[in-house]
């Protein structure tokens, strides 16, 4: 079955017609307003959790609804309905219309369905149709591999989640488009215990595909072994150092640095309002010449990728920083209109209950020329951080943090003791100026990123080659 060339579930199962879309949009513009759109969403989630070697829970979730947005100048009216019945959608349209009062002649909208410009996640079976026994088999394999790694592994929690999301977007400028967005993810959490001391390890992975995602590097055994390895390693971790020092970030998930340090600060809404530490810096040098950073929503099967964003615009590759110079912002429809820029396919929302905002997709730094071993050898005293928990940024001051969960001391060019988790803190607009080496080993993360903004969470990706930062503050306890 081709997932993106079939007709949308909204036409087939819920009998929504193009004529209906025109009627709803007309109602949305009945008090005037510059623009209106509809976001239909039908989402099916499954999760299975294996813990203490038994299947503890199996869950199915259904979310169905439509959001109606009316834009008038810089103002947005929003309402939604969790019923697709005509009267309920019309009522939501009238509620959203309340924001505008420029005219009363009513909107007349003609809709032209659009073809996709790309097809990034065509898969044979959507996650909603997978058999639960296949998912349980993955979890059992993970559990066994984690326990086999070391007898000090006392607890293993393996969980599987999938999502099958149908969206249909129709806009008052006459476009309609739809998409079917799959997602799968496997997580393994381990607790190691020795002499009354406990430590945890975590590893996960996935993407916009079916169960074939869980092979190779993302196979249950590899994820579980990695999770167990981290938990055991932490049993001998020493206190992390405190103070500024040279830091080497490993490839892949440490790309969370880019997400926090610059990505959020380049979202157009903050810059349109002048609340970002990056406001007004386009064309200026914000990073070392070694740094080229992109946000690319078009990578096949990636967690942060989309055929179209949640406003119906095709996703793009957007260059944020080229050889150290800031190029531009991540745009949604509203900000791009107000800033007279092109939309970049970054308008995203958590669900039909939420108003879209400029958001990241997959954010990463392009590879450089250094060999990763040489980068480590070049450090006399520093920190080598390879695995991270979460991060956060203060958009306005530009200060950001990200927390290392696996890191080592570097002493005289050699990786030595593992250290306990520590938060690294820096300044977004200046941290990339301190990048003194970029490795040739760009890696994207394994598909676990969740980004939060204004109470809305969405899946994202990050990536990084090995990089060296001349100085960043490490928040340990060992002075």
């Amino acid at each position, binding site marked *: 079955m081709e997932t993106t060339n079939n007709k949308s579930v909204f036409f087939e199962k819920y009998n929504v017609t193009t004529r209906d879309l025109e009627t709803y949009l007309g109602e949305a513009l009945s008090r005037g307003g510059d623009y209106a759109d509809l976001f239909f969403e039908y989402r099916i989630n499954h999760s299975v959790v294996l813990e203490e070697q038994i299947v503890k829970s199996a869950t199915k*979730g259904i979310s169905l609804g439509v959001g109606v947005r009316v834009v008038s100048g810089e103002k947005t009216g929003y309402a939604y309905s969790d019923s697709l019945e005509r009267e309920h959608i019309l009522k939501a349209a009238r509620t959203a219309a309340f924001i505008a009062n420029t005219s009363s002649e009513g909107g007349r909208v003609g809709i032209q369905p659009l073809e996709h410009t790309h097809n990034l996640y065509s898969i044979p079976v959507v996650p909603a149709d997978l058999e639960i026994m296949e998912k349980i088999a993955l979890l059992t394999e993970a559990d066994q591999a984690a326990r086999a790694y070391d007898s000090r592994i006392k607890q293993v929690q393996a969980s599987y989640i999938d999502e099958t999301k149908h969206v249909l977007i129709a806009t008052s400028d006459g476009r309609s488009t739809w998409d079917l967005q799959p997602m799968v993810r496997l997580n393994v959490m381990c*607790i190691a215990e020795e002499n009354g001391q406990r430590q945890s390890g975590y590893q996960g992975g996935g993407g916009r595909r079916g169960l074939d995602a869980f092979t190779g590097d993302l196979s249950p055994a590899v994820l579980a072994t990695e999770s167990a390895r981290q938990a055991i390693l932490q049993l001998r971790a020493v206190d992390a150092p405190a103070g500024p020092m040279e830091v080497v970030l490993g490839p892949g998930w440490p790309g969370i640095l880019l997400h926090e340090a610059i990505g959020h600060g380049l979202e157009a809404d903050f810059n349109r309002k002048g609340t970002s530490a990056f406001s007004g810096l386009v064309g200026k040098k914000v990073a070392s010449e070694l740094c080229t950073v992109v946000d690319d929503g078009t990578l096949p099967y990636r967690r942060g990728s989309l055929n179209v964003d949640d406003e119906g615009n095709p996703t793009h590759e957007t260059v944020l920083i080229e050889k150290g110079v800031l190029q531009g912002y991540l745009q949604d429809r509203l900000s791009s209109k107000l800033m007279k820029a092109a939309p970049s396919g970054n308008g995203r929302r958590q669900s039909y209950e939420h108003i879209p905002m400029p958001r990241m997709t997959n954010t990463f730094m392009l590879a450089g020329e250094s060999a990763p071993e040489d980068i480590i050898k070049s450090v006399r005293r520093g920190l080598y951080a390879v695995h991270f928990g979460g991060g956060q940024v203060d958009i306005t001051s530009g200060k950001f943090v990200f927390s290392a969960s696996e890191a080592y001391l570097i002493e005289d060019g050699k990786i030595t003791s593992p250290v306990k988790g520590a938060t690294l803190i820096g300044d977004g607009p200046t941290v990339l100026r301190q990048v003194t080496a970029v490795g040739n080993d760009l890696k994207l993360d394994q598909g676990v990123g969740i980004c939060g903004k204004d109470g809305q969470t969405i899946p994202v990706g990050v990536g990084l080659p090995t990089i060296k930062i001349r100085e960043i503050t490490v928040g340990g306890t060992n002075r």
Partner: protein
Amino acid sequence: MQQLKDTAEHVIARAKKNGVTAADVMIREDDTFSVTVRMGEVETLKEAVSRGLLLRVFLGKRTATSNTSDLSQAAVDRLVDETVQMARLTSEDDSGGLPAESIPRTDFPNLDLVDPTWEQLAPEERISWAVRAEKAALSADKAIVNSEGSSFEQAHSRVALANTLGFAGAYEGTSAGLFCGPIAESGGGKQRDYWVTAARHRKNMESPEDVGRKAAQRVLRRLDARKIATCQIPIVFDPLTARSLLNHLFDAVAGNSIYRRSSFLVDKIGQTIAAPEITVVDDARLPGGLGSAPFDDEGVPTQTTPIIENGVLRNYLHSAYTARKLGTRPTGNGSRAGSGVVTIGPTNFYLKAGKYSPEEIISSVKDGLYVVELIGFGVNTVTGDYSRGAVGLRIENGKLTYPVHEITIAGNLLEMFKNVEMIGNDVTFLGSIAAPTLKIGKMVISGE
């Protein structure tokens, strides 16, 4: 309300027909209104009713759960059938099942959760609250040049719960929040901060002008912040940042972290884990409390549970499952946030007020830091290891002197709670979890 109860009872009947040995269902309905205003103009206006049905079924010792926003009868019936099918494929779990039949199901006092006067507040007035708060902030000082916006949100929530043991209950509550986030600028760059008030009752909300003025004071004191050298000094947490410490404590006493042994407080009941002045409770019966409820999401009557008494750890918090797992009684903390799987949630979880005013606490510090904001996720509940980004004000000779940023504070939660030296009289409720100003003897600051 009656309609929610009817749907709940219909679902239970359908599940029984499908051969379940036990089941429970919870239905939530939220009427929500929110407005954001920026630089005096309405930016977004949002109004909607959202609903969710959460179902759990048992086939002997096997279980499955489901949730849906689609409450049409056909969709609900199909989901009930599918959930029962799913339960056939999970494992037998000896600790599974509904709360014991012997748990009383009658002690449900009126907790004063509804303020009917919210309904009389017209949309124009609601908008004006946000406008007035922002205006008060913008006019407080000429250094306040911009705004993240100001928002007002109001909700009326209804919950109905039914199970196969014959329980059928419902309750409702109102709540509102007013937020203001001004931005100030000086030669030293831009800074943001905020203030917020939240309550179930209108009479307990701070005025929009007070919210705006407090937000302005909080952002102005952050201007021209700098880094300080790495050091080890006393730390005073304001009520908002102290509240985050209580959040970590809650995670560590939640029954599911205990049976998984993923908490630094495992095996510590009866032991001294905090300074002797510290008393922490989870009190679900606080009249008008933002976290108050008559029964939990499994139908267990809520209660007041002592967590720490004079520094000694007394209780963990339990759902029916974690209680059975650990051989104790549920504490009425079963929570079905989101997916429908029962986890542990706080009710009104707070550290009781001490005797000192915040000013007395600050003036007791010769050389320290008053922390006003924390960022990041550098907290490990398994070990208690703590390392977060911080913004604060330097304390020198008992006085707040200059703002500090781009630093981290680090330590271990167990040591931090043991090292609490002074407790403020200013417990500030902005949600389920609350704390007063706290002074901790010493922590490591990492800076320049």
